C-alpha cells in the first residue's frame, strides 16, 4: 500500500506540472483573439469617424469650384492649381490680366481659410448675393477664356452639403437663376456627414 501511494505521488507530480501551465494560457489567448477580432469587425462595419476633404478636386479637365454648405452658411474653396497653366496658354493680354486678378483674389480667399485658427468650419458665412454673382461671372469668364485659347479647362460648381446645410445651397441656386452667367456652368452635389472635416493646409502646402 505504501509503496503504491508513494509511486502515485511521484507520477502525479510529473503530469500536473505541464497541464497547469498550458490551459490558462490558451484561454487568455483565445479571449484576446476573440476581442481583437470583434473590434476589428466592428471598426470595419462602423462608418469612418473622421474624414478629411481635399480642397482641390478635379476630374480630367473639369475642375471643381467647391462650395461647402453648412447650417451657418457656406465656405467657398476656389481652385487655383491649374490656373497658372491656363494663364500661360492664353495669348491675349486682357485675358492674362483677367486670370491674374482671379488668381490673386482666390489666393486671398484660400489664405484667409488657411490662416484661420481653430476649425475651418467656423468660417462659414451666409451667401452674399453679389459674391455669388461675382463667382459665376469669374467661372464663366475662365471657362470662356479656356475655350478661346483652345485649352481644355472647365470649372464647375461642386456643392458639398452638410446636414442642415440645404438652406444655403437653395439660396445660391436661387441667385444663380438670376444670372445668364450660370447657364452653362455644370453642377455637382454630394451629401456630407457632420464629422467629415475640411483640411486645407494639406492641399495648399502641396502647391
Amino acid at each position, binding site marked *: 500500500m505504501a509503496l503504491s501511494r508513494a509511486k502515485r505521488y*511521484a507520477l502525479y507530480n510529473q503530469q500536473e506540472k505541464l497541464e497547469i501551465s498550458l490551459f490558462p494560457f490558451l484561454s487568455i489567448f483565445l479571449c484576446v483573439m476573440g476581442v481583437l477580432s470583434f473590434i476589428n469587425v466592428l471598426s470595419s462595419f462602423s462608418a469612418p469617424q473622421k474624414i478629411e476633404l481635399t480642397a482641390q478636386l478635379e476630374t480630367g479637365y473639369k475642375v471643381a469650384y467647391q462650395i461647402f454648405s453648412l447650417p451657418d452658411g457656406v465656405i467657398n474653396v476656389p481652385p487655383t492649381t491649374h490656373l497658372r497653366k491656363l494663364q500661360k496658354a492664353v495669348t491675349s493680354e486682357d485675358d492674362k490680366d483677367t486670370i491674374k486678378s482671379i488668381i490673386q483674389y482666390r489666393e486671398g480667399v484660400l489664405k484667409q481659410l488657411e490662416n484661420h485658427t481653430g476649425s475651418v468650419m467656423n468660417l462659414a458665412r451666409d451667401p452674399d448675393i453679389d459674391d455669388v454673382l461675382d463667382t459665376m461671372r469669374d467661372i*464663366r469668364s475662365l471657362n470662356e477664356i479656356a*475655350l478661346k485659347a*483652345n485649352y*481644355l479647362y472647365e470649372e464647375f460648381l461642386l456643392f458639398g452639403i452638410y446636414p442642415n446645410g440645404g438652406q444655403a445651397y437653395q439660396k445660391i441656386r436661387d441667385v444663380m437663376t438670376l444670372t445668364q452667367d450660370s447657364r*452653362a456652368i455644370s453642377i455637382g452635389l454630394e451629401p456630407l456627414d457632420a464629422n467629415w472635416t475640411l483640411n486645407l493646409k494639406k492641399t495648399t502646402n502641396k502647391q
Partner: protein
Amino acid sequence: MSKTPFNQLKINWSLAEDTSLDDLLAQAQNKLLSDPSNPELVYNIAEIHRHLGNKDDADANYKEAIKLTHERTKVRGEKLEKRLEKKRGSTRAKFLILTFLPVIAGLLIAGGLWKALADPDPIPAEANPENFAFTQWLAKQQMVKIITTLQKQNPELSFDFSRQASSKQSPMEFMQSLMQEDAIQRMKREQQNASTKKNDKGKDGRPEFQCSKEPAISCPASDIPSAAGELRQEVVLLMEAYRSVLENEQDCEKIEKSIESIGEQLQWRKSEARIKADLEDFAMECFYRQKNVEKTIEHARKLQCTGDAGYINSVYWYMTAITHHAQDTARAEASYQCFQEATDYIEKNTDFSPAYIASRHRESGALAWLYFNDLDSATNELQKARSLLKSISKKTPSILEVSGEIDLDLLETYVTANIDQDSFDELLHDINSSGRLTDGYKQIKDTLVTIYYLQNNKNDKAKITLKNITSRFKLMPEFICGWDWGGFKRGLNDSISDDSIREQAINMVDLADCYIDSSISQRITQSNAVAKWLQGK
C-alpha cells in the same frame, strides 16, 4: 512476517533465499555507496529497517527516498523540457515561414486593393446617343439639303436660317419647343387677363379654325373641353408641373392613360383648353416617335378637338408626317395644305408673336421640301420667315439661344466655304463667348474647327482641338446633341480637294454625329485613329 517482500530483491541481487534481513541491509547499504542517489535502493533500505523494527531509521530512509525521487523527477522533467524546447524551436521556424508568408502576401494584396478602392471610380465610357427614329433623322437630313440648296440660290439667306432646326432635340421637337415657349407665354398672358376679363369666347366648343381641305371633324363630347366656368388656377399650375414628368416619358400608353384619367377627373373647362391641348400634344409626339400611325392620328384629332389655335400647326405637322410615313400621299398633301391654311389663320390672329409665326413658316418650308420635294414653296416660306424674324427687336433669352445656334450653323457654312481666317476667328470668338455651349455642342464646334484647320494645313492646331475632343468624350456620360451632318458631309466633296484629308474629315463627322448609334468608347477610338493619321503627316 513472511520474507516474500524481499524475495524478488534477493533474486535481483543474486542472493540466497535464506539470507537474513541484516545481511540484506548490509548488502543494500554497500550498494548505496556506489549509487547514492538511487531512490529505489534507499526505499528498500527503509523497508528492511521497518522489517527489522528500526522505526527511526526507516522513517529517515523513507524521507530520503522521497527526496531522491523528487530530484529524479525534476531532472527528468528538465530533460523533457529541453527536448520540448528544441522541438518547439523547429515548429516555430516552420510556422513562421508557413504563416507569415501568406500573411505578408495577404497584406500586400489588401494594400493593393485598398489603394484601388480609394481611387475615385473611373467614369464608364458608355451612354448611347439619342435613339431617334430614323424618319425623324432623315427628315432633318433632308431639311439640311433644302437649306444648303437655298443657300446656294440665295447667299444672303444663309445666316438667318441656315439650320435653326439644329437643336438639342429633333427638328420637330425644336420647332415644337419654339412654339411651346411662345404658347406658355401666351398662357401666362391669358391667365393674367382671366382675372380682368372672362376669356370665354368661341362657339359651343367647336374648333375655331376649319381647314378647307378636310371635312369638319366631329368631336365626341368627351374630347371637347366644354364645361363652363373660370380657369382653375391650381389645375393649370399642376398640369404645367406635370410637363416635367411627361417630358422624357417613353411609354406613350402611360401618357395616354394619364390624360384620360385626368380628363375624367377634371371635366375640362373651355377656359382650360390649352392645358388639355398641351397634354394631347405630348401624347401625339410620343406616338409619332414610335411611328404608331393610328394613335398619332387619334391624338392629333383629340388635339384638334380642344379647339386651341396655338396647336393647329402642330396637328397638321404630325398629320403630314405620319400620313406620309404611312404612304398615304393624298392625305399627306391635304394635311400640308391645312398646315399652310393654319399658318395663314394665325398670321391674321393678333394673339401670336412674329417669332411664333415665323417659325410656322419655317416648318411649312421644311414640310414642303421633306415630303413634297417642293423647293419653290420652301424658298418662299423661308423668305417669309426671315423677314418676320428680322422685325423682332427685343432679344429674349430664347432668341439669344437660337442665335447662338445660328452662329454654330454659320460656322458650318464657313468651314464648308473655307472662309478667310479672320472672319472665321471672329465667329469662333462669338461662339466661345456665348455662355451657352453644352458639352455636346462643344464637340460639334471643335469637330468643325478641326476640319477647318485640316483643310488649311494647320496641323498643329488641329492636333490640339482633336485632343480636346477626345478628352471631352472621355468624361462624357451621354453624348446629346441635335446636329445633322448630312449637308456638311455632302459639301465636303466640293470643299476639300485632297482625298486623304476629305476621308479624315468624313471620319471626324462620323465620330461627332449624335444620330449614329455608336458608344462613346467607339467615338474615342475613331478620334484616336484620326489623331494617328495626323501624327503621321
